[in-house]
């Protein structure tokens, strides 16, 4: 993010704190896509990811109370989205017997493209435990550093590192090979 974009965020956040609907809408348009992408990676469901987007932005004016503006707004928002997504997953787990009719089969897009290797990787990702999957997704797919991930998930940096290595190990084993 450029300094200009960061300044724009700061101004929009300030205006939203003052109640501006337009500032709210602009922040939504700016961050909807990355938040959806992150949410889909964590939930594997288009509708669950859209729900995350809706929840994050519908409550944004209130949740801004927890944003001290000491760091990047985008990073903070992703942390919020990550928590919303994970809360949703926990609720789903409590209703484990309830089928997710809108759940995207792992690798569905990759299979539709005829790319079985991607489908295998997505299957293997789906087999990871949630803690490992979260860290892997945030580090490898979304490109966050361990310090950011630790902040987003409220874990130690070392814990994030260990989970990533375990995730890679499991993926390696699941994908077989020599």
């Amino acid at each position, binding site marked *: 993010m450029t300094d200009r974009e960061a300044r724009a965020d700061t101004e929009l956040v300030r*205006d939203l704190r*003052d*109640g*501006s*609907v*337009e*500032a*709210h*809408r602009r922040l*939504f*348009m700016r961050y*909807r896509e990355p938040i*959806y*992408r992150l949410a*889909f*990676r964590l939930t594997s469901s*288009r*509708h669950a*990811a*859209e729900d995350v*987007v*809706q929840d994050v*932005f*519908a409550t944004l*004016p209130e949740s801004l109370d927890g944003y001290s503006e000491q760091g990047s707004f985008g990073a903070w928002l992703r942390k919020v989205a990550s928590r919303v997504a994970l809360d949703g997953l926990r609720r789903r787990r409590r209703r484990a017997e309830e089928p997710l009719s*809108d759940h*995207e089969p792992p690798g*569905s*897009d*990759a299979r539709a*493209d005829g790319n079985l*290797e*991607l489908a295998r*990787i*997505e299957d293997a*990702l789906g087999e990871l435990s949630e803690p490992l999957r979260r860290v*892997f997704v945030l580090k*490898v*797919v979304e*490109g966050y550093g361990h310090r950011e991930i630790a902040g987003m998930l409220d874990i130690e940096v070392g814990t994030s*590192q260990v989970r*990533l*290595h*375990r995730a*890679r*190990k499991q*993926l*390696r084993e699941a*994908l077989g*090979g*020599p």
Partner: protein
Amino acid sequence: MNDHPETPTLSRYLDDELSSERRQAVEAHLSGCHDCRKELELLAEIDRSAAGLPVPDPPLGADESWRRIAGRRGGGRERSSTMDDASGRRWLTPAAAAVLLLAVIGGAAALPGSPFRAWMAARVADVAPEPVSTGEVAAPELPGEAGRRSGVGVAPRAGEVSVHLPETAAGTRLHVRVGESTMATVWGGDVRVTTAPGEVRVTGFSGDELTVEFPSDLALGQVTLGDRIVVEKQGPIFEFRVPRVDSTGSGYRVRLSEENR
């Protein structure tokens, strides 16, 4: 290093998390171990492939997604950027927003043929208009003021002006309009006013029509009757919370009543 490094060690090598000494040992091993180089490459390939996994499109388009969010907020309305003044629009309480939404629909229905109606129709086509008597309307084009006026003007404070009518009798017609003056002006029959920056307080009014003219570029103008806001101008938009009598070509008239207090 004689032993093959474990996967976590290679993972740390990929992430440059090893100590300098440990890293050198791993690199020395990799230089002579084809299998471990392949293993390292496989780990890197898993990372690259995972990062490249496609994400399907969201089930909702951006506009529909925002519309639902706005609905949950209680605003429930979309506006074009030209009509949505970032400095003037505010999220409303759910109750106020519901009233305002009805007012929007009613105002649109009350102005056949107006551009505002068409604008609204495109945005609330899935909501059946109700015959409510309040409305939100765009300010019309106003002719220049030819006649002489007497009254009081007050400069906005922080772009806002409030006109208070604490004692105005029921049945009084209130004429609200915009003008090109930088002052907000109040005039009518016999009227006594007190002013403060951004505020006009009207007492002792004895006529049958009181006119309030707001500057066209005013961010926020309000007319209050008792504790209630009866008319509000936010940017180019008027919101009426009392029945409008007519639109005159030079503004709008409402009739004040005890119920409005």
